[in-house]
């Protein structure tokens, strides 16, 4: 089945449901090294995304992601708003108005998304942020697309890499975001934004595999 606007909208709805399921986990992670609102922020933002999609389903995947972006920017409230907002915006721009996703376009969109997060937040790999999950995910997606992997395989590779990248944040000292105020005391905790990035990518991969 081609991955068109309707399929992308369905994947976004599924991701919103995953965020709701993991809301408390994300709150707990953010409680340890932040201000305990990451789960709440994302649940609110994706809740509004779902309402926007109820109103109109834009007619290509890029336009769906643009709607996600503008909604997250307006509704999330914490750092995750401008960061994920910029990520979805850049991904939307990379996709242009192509009617369906391809393995290559998804890999390129993910790369553009990571570029957006880095441009917005100035974090590098190793700073204990969502960049630690997203950067290896974009690398894995590109590698899989390059060897002619299917769309679902590209996203599965990205999700696997994002999960490993998120785990890798545990021993790190936070150097960006609110957690950086804790310095050494941030060691031993999973970064909430890295965790939510891995959750989103896993959800997208599951949607692609089921489609």
């Amino acid at each position, binding site marked *: 089945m081609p991955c068109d606007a309707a399929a992308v909208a369905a994947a976004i709805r599924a991701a919103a449901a995953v965020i709701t399921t993991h809301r408390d986990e994300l709150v707990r992670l953010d409680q340890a090294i932040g201000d305990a609102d990451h789960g709440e*922020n994302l649940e609110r933002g994706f809740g509004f995304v779902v309402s926007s999609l109820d109103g109109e389903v834009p007619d290509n995947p890029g336009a769906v992601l643009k709607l996600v972006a503008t909604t997250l920017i*307006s509704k999330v409230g914490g750092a995750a*708003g*401008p*960061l994920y907002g910029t990520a979805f915006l850049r991904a939307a721009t990379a996709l242009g108005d192509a009617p369906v996703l391809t393995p290559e376009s998804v890999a390129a969109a993910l790369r553009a998304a990571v570029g957006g997060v880095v441009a*917005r937040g100035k974090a590098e790999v190793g700073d204990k942020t969502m960049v630690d999950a997203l950067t290896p995910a974009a690398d894995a997606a590109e590698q899989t697309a390059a060897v002619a992997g299917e769309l679902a395989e590209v996203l599965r590779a990205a999700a696997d890499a994002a999960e490993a990248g998120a785990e890798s944040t545990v021993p790190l000292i936070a150097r960006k*975001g609110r957690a950086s105020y804790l310095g050494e005391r941030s060691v031993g905790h999973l970064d909430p934004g890295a965790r939510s990035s891995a959750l989103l990518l896993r959800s997208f991969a599951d949607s692609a595999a089921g489609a």
Partner: protein
Amino acid sequence: MVVVSHSGRLAEGVVELARQMAPDVPLIAAGGLAGGLGTDFDAVSDAVAQAQSGAGVVLLYDLGSAKMVADLAVEMLGDPSDAVVVDAPLVEGAVAAAVAAQGGATLDAVLSAAASALTDLASDKPVDPEDGLEIVLTNAVGLHARPAALLASTLTGLDAEVTVSFSGHSANARSVLALLSLGTTGGDQVTVTATGPDATEALRRIGDLATHNFGD
């Protein structure tokens, strides 16, 4: 100017403080989210629109994600060069920028006033008092907000480096914040020194202000 903060009360407080010294500058607080803590992109965008008077908008922020929201709001403008997010200490930067804007400074000058707000504070570099003008502050409050602003603005257009020193500390006389941070009160004696082509005129103007009690 727009003050972007996670807290509504913090943004309002910074605006209140800056407004005291810059009553004519549009200062807009964009703090909090839905009555609680957070940064509200739509509120920041509205504040930028409201602050537009044709001369440019300066945005100051408190913590990291407030900067991200401010940056995004600027990028989404029709002409992003109309507004600038400045990296500056929030309170000192807001006061310094507001005072500069009140004095009619250009966007660039307002930005550099904000950005140098911390380094402009009084230093403990001693100044040789011998060749300076000694002034006893006969007004009630010393070099407080209004007198300091008057002193700084009286030097506009002069090519001179002017320093005010008090009790072992010295301040750049063009920086209201630095003058404030000297902590003078009524009755204190300060020393004013000047170098450069317009040094004599600078000292004359300041002496004049002092004679007139800084307008009090």
